[in-house]
Every structure is written in structure tokens, then in C-alpha cells.
């Protein structure tokens, strides 16, 4: 198998070769391409949307030959317009909440993945709001899982609640809406985490309530539940809410955590594949929303990255795609797509970067200082 570094390099090379063949992208452009377009000073209209291709997707089902059929939107539509990092290594804990929190803080957080706790280190939302003096309405998180309700703000004394992001948990809101109307059948919908399929934690974060959602998003509870009835999955509901947020509040920093892929924990390969295909499609829908909304078009950087991968088929300590328990190099090595104004198109970056580099990169783009983040800005997209 080799060391994490060796395997990560092999994976990156494999992705690069594939991307080159599939999209014509070239690594050389990263070195010799034109400088990115940028204004003299970034006007404060610049926006950032982060989408976690969440729930843990492997190369076998995405970038490897047999997996390409599952991500047509990424390959044919988004990557040709993007800079792609093929070797994003996550050295932290491979649990979805703690790993996503680590992405949001730029520090490998170490808290219990299943506890409803705030990250210890300041989040990207807090840096953004405090440094740039942005109002609460300018940073939002949409996450499907109740376990993510504390991700908007850290427990750090210098930051914390006054600077956090608003958090919307659409599934939770839907559950509340259905409960209020006396409708049953929402308990299963609230299934929070496929690792512990019956877990529904007590909430105590900054997530908004149903009436707030109706007020903020100009979306009646009836319209919300009616639309939910037409959707196939919680991630579709998350994207619907994200688009409502973009329309009504147009936040400068929007973070969407997708999670359907985590159905893999049930051991059902076909459902895992369905979820990857759906996530691929939803990423395309979000990019379309960005391109068509006047508040976002032409001034938004989109980051798409998995929180981590899943165990390899050959690791005897795991059970292949089902879990992410071994910490093997393949489960730690992922990728990232960056696209938007000033970001070079159709470029592949092979060098190893870390998932904690995301926050410093956003900081450099938007002009805030993530002082406690461990990562470094990714110069290839700045």
C-alpha cells in the first residue's frame, strides 16, 4: 500500500491522467498560464460558496474509469471551468461532523464526532464576520444533519456567537413543520447520521427556527413542506434552501454540506452510487444558480470538496466503500474543485495540499485573517 504520502501521490497522478484525458486539462497551465483576472481591489461584492461533496466518496466511484459515469456534471461541465487540486489530504479525524468542522476552522478539530459541541477554533464565518464587520445575515450554513447544528460558531473566547453563521437544518425544520401539522412519518426522515442510524441529538446551537425561516426566506411553511414533498432526498432539500437563501439574503459566504452519500454506511452499494450521482447533479444546480443570480453571477468563487473518502476495498480492517474507519491513505486523500472569476480554468494541480488549506484560501480571497488556522493559502487560485 505504501505511506500516506506515496499513496496520495499515486492517487493524484491517477486523477491527473484521467482529467487530462477526459477534459484536456493540463498541469503546465498552473505554472505558465496567464495571471488570473482580478480587480485592483476586490470590491466587496465578492462571494464564496463552499459545497462539501459530503458523506465520503471514493475515487473508485468518481474519478476512476468505472466511476466516471457517476459524475458527468463535474467532469463535463464544471472541471473544464475550474482549477482542480488532485491531492487534498485530510490528516484529521474521519468523522463527518468533526471533519467538516475542521474544514470550516482550518484546524484538525479533535472533539467527539457524535457530540453536539461547537468547534474549539474559530470558524471561517467568525473570521469573515469579525474582520470584515459583516452582519449576521451575510454568512450561512445549510446542513442536512442535526449533528451539524453547532458548526456555525466556535467556542473560542475571542470569537463565538457574536460572529457566527446562521445555521439552517432543513430536515429539522421539515420535521418541525410536519409535527406541527400532526403529520407522522418524519421520524425516519430525521435520521441524522448513517453511522448511528437512530441518532437524533438534542439541539442547542444557533440553528434557526421554523418561523424564522419563514420570515427570512419569505417562504411559508406550507410552501416549504409542499416543495419537500416533490424531492427525493435531504440533500435536494438543502439545495432548495440554499437557493432560497441566495435569492432572499444573498449571503457573501454560504456553506452547503451535502450528506446523502453517507447512505453507504448501510452497506447498500446501489444507494451509495445513486447518492453520488445525485450529489453530482446538485453541484451543477448550485453552479447554475450562481451563474443566473445577479447577486452572484461573475463574482462568486465556488469550492467543491469531499470531507474525506472511504476505506479501500483491499484494506482488511475495513469493509470497502461501507465505512471510513481504517484511516487508510485512500480514505484520507481527496480532491477539490475551485471555480469562479480569477480562477484559472481547466488546470490541474498535483501537489499535495491539506483540507485545512481551505479557510486560509478563502481568507486570502475575501480579505480576512484566519489567525488560528493551520493551513496555508493555495496560491494557484489566488
Amino acid at each position, binding site marked *: 500500500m505504501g505511506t*500516506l504520502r506515496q499513496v496520495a501521490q499515486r492517487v493524484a497522478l491517477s486523477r491527473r491522467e484521467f482529467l487530462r484525458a477526459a477534459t484536456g486539462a493540463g498541469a503546465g497551465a498552473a505554472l505558465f498560464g496567464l495571471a488570473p483576472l482580478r480587480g485592483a481591489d476586490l470590491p466587496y461584492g465578492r462571494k464564496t460558496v463552499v459545497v462539501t461533496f459530503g458523506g465520503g466518496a471514493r475515487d473508485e466511484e468518481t474519478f476512476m474509469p*468505472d466511476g466516471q459515469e457517476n459524475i458527468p456534471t463535474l467532469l463535463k461541465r464544471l472541471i473544464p471551468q475550474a482549477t482542480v487540486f488532485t491531492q487534498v489530504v485530510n*490528516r*484529521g*479525524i*474521519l*468523522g463527518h461532523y468533526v471533519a467538516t468542522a475542521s474544514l470550516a476552522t482550518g484546524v*484538525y478539530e*479533535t*472533539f*467527539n464526532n*457524535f457530540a453536539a459541541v461547537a468547534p474549539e477554533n474559530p470558524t471561517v464565518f467568525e473570521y469573515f464576520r469579525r474582520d470584515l464587520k459583516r452582519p449576521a445575515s451575510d454568512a450561512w450554513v445549510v446542513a442536512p444533519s442535526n449533528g451539524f447544528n453547532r458548526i456555525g460558531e466556535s467556542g473560542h473566547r475571542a470569537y463565538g456567537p457574536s460572529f457566527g453563521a446562521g445555521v439552517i437544518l432543513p430536515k429539522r425544520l421539515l420535521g418541525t413543520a*410536519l409535527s406541527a401539522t400532526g*403529520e*407522522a*412519518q*418524519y421520524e*425516519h*426522515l430525521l435520521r441524522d447520521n*448513517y*453511522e*448511528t*442510524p*437512530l*441518532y*437524533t*441529538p*438534542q439541539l442547542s446551537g444557533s440553528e434557526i427556527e421554523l418561523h424564522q425561516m419563514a420570515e427570512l426566506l419569505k417562504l411559508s411553511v406550507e410552501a416549504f*413542506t409542499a416543495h*419537500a*414533498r*416533490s*424531492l*427525493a*432526498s*435531504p440533500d*435536494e*432539500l438543502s439545495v432548495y434552501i440554499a437557493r432560497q437563501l441566495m435569492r432572499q439574503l444573498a449571503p457573501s459566504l454560504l456553506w452547503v454540506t451535502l450528506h446523502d452519500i453517507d*447512505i453507504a*454506511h*448501510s*452497506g*447498500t*452499494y*446501489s*444507494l451509495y*452510487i445513486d447518492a453520488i450521482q445525485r450529489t453530482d447533479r446538485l453541484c451543477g444546480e448550485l453552479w447554475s444558480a450562481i451563474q443566473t443570480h445577479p447577486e452572484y453571477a461573475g463574482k462568486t468563487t465556488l469550492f467543491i470538496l469531499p470531507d474525506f473518502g472511504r476505506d479501500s*476495498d*483491499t484494506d*482488511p*480492517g475495513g*469493509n*470497502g*466503500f*461501507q*465505512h471510513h474507519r*481504517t*484511516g*487508510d491513505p485512500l480514505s484520507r486523500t481527496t480532491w477539490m474543485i475551485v471555480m469562479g472569476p480569477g480562477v484559472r480554468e481547466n488546470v490541474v494541480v498535483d501537489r499535495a495540499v491539506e483540507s485545512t488549506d481551505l479557510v486560509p484560501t478563502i481568507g486570502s480571497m475575501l480579505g480576512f485573517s484566519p489567525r488560528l488556522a493551520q493551513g496555508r493559502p493555495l496560491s494557484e487560485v489566488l
Partner: protein
Amino acid sequence: MQPDQLNADQFSGYPPQARQVAVHRLELFRQLPLAFLPLLLRELIAYDWKFPAERSDLDNQLAYLSARSSEQLADAMAPFTKLRLSAELVEVNWVSEPAQFSERLTAHLWATHQIDAFRTAAIDYVHKVNAAAPSMPLPLPRLTIAVIGAGVERNSYPLFRRLRPQGVYFNGIDPQNGWHVLLETIVARAAMHPVPFGHWYIDGGAVATPASPGLACVSYDALQGVRNALVNKMRSVMQPGGGGPEVLRTMLAQMRPEDVGLTGAGEAAVLSRFQVSILTEGSGTQLFSTTFVQWSAREALRRAQPVTLLARFTPRQREQSMKDLLAGIEQAPVPDPAGSLIDADMGAYYTWLNQQRLSGAQQSSFLAWFENHNEALAISPALPRGKTDESALDMRQLLRRLT
């Protein structure tokens, strides 16, 4: 407590055979590091209900460690000794509750970024132990059969993509009587080569053959009552105020067969423990028959190391979409044959991979068959790799090609 403070009385709560082994190996245990010994005890505490192959592996491991000089042992254990453990871990009653210690150790290793060092140490250790283990001849080459696709009439999914490079893809199989021939085959192997827990039949539906001597049978349908009881217990723990995931893990780790209505003595007790472990340790096994079969086959191969295994995948229940859930109508589970075929195709691949981890892998044979259809994939030392064979064969002829 540190391992060097161990004494025999501390094993009084262990089952009889496990206690006997522990007391016999006490001097060895006192020399092992805390990041290692409780993991060994987690295996030992279940010694009385382990399969013969598992006992043999554990005995070999203890013999390997006991045969080291103090210096060699310290050297072998050095990567584990170097791991930094917390004071809280030292305080855990790891002799009586090694599984709980293991859970906490895992969390600690992840949180302190030592999981990779542990993983490297563990892989290296296992390689050394396996290399030193005596080679035991098998009574006959292993044969594993995966039957997939029950209930599917038409299929466009390309089957056996991962397995084709390893063997021959047959597409002229006469399905007539095929299932019956496979059952006959495993029953005959069990009768001719009686080995305790050496021959297995796992079914995602109901068992399709009368009880047969020497054939360990596990089926999803037979465990329906157990599955329901277990899900109800899990649900109560996971509701607000019920204790949460930490309590759930502890509850599952401590669950005994009698807690969910399984009884039996002797070999039946061993099989009952196995079945409980499938439902308590396997994610999704309680809800999806395809996952149940795949995980059961994996665990049977890993633990019992059978020479014969027949695993039949049946349609799992369909996962309800959000739209369906919000329809608000309590629906009986609806089968999903097409999705289950894809699940089972991957399950067959994993089953082959797991067979390849066992001794005698080079002589082993593997057959995957699309039930009631003419497609099959066979892997055997007698067959080439990466080939397609369009010959018209019945199941008996296909089985003969394997040998």
C-alpha cells in the same frame, strides 16, 4: 492500572476457558504495553464462544509472543509502547471491559493523531505473527459461491466487472436446476469432509435446505424476531434521554444471545453469538438483507475460515425516498430487486476478496452466479483469467470446470 500490576484474580469474571488461558499467560501479559494488551484480551474474553479457527489463531498469537525473549518482545511491542495514552485510559477497567477500552483507545488515537502510527504498527505485527504461524493443510481446497440477483427478470447492469479480470465470465449457463445443484454440492462437501464450522450456508431469505450435519446455516428470515427486538432496543437508547450513541455502543457490545431471544448450548451457542455479532456490529445488517449476507459472509470467512461457503443474496427492501416518506402512508416494505442486484454484485466481489485473505488462497475456487440466468463468473487455479466462455453448460458442468 498498568499491565505489570496484573494478577490472576482479576480474570475471575472471564468464562472458564478464557480464564484458563489468561492465567496460563499471565507472565506474558505483564510484559505487554497498555496500548496492546486490552485488544488481545478483547479477543480472549470471548474465547469460549470462538470458532475453532479463531481459537487456533489466538493460540498461535499467544505462542508467538511467549516464544520471544524479553528483548525480542520489547522490540516487537516497541511501536505500541511508544503510543502516548491518557491518564483516563489507564483508569479504565480494561481487564473486565476490554471492548470499552478499545472504543476509548480508538477515539484517543484519532484525537491525538496517533491512529496512523497504530495502524502501521498493527499491520506490521499481524504480518509477523502470520509469517510465524504453522501452515495447516486444508482438508480440501476452499470453495465459495455467491448467488446474486434473485427476483430480477431483466438486467442491463454490467455484472462481475471487478471479478472478470480474475477468472472466466460464462454467459451460456443453463440455469435449470442450478440452485438445487449448488445446494447439493455444499451439503455433499460438508458430509464428506466434516469440519466443525467448516461449511457455511448464508441466505438473505429463508434457508432452502433441511438441516444438514456439518453445515452452519444463517438466514435473514430466521432472525426476523431477533432483528426486530434489536432495532427496538436501539431505538429506545437513541431517543432523546435514552443515552445516545455512547450508551448504544456499550449496550451492543454487551448484548448476549438470550437478550434477543436466541438460546442454545455447545456449537449452537457459538453460532448464536456469531449471529448476534452480525446484527450488533454490522451496520445496515438489521435493515437490509443484502448487507446482512455480505457482512455475514465476510465475518464467516474472517472468523470461521470455512472451506465451503454458499452466500445467496435476495432482494432487500427498497429505501423510501423523501417524497415517499412524506406521503405519510405506512407502507409495507417493498423489495428492490434491481438495486439489490447491484449491491450483491459488489457483495460477491467483497466475498471473493475476503476468501483471498485466507490460507490456501492460490488453490481456492470462487463462483458467482446470476440466479436463474445464464451469466456466471468462475475463478479457479484451473481457469484462465480475464476470459469469456460462451459454451453451453449446466451447473454441474460449470462446477467441474472449477476443479
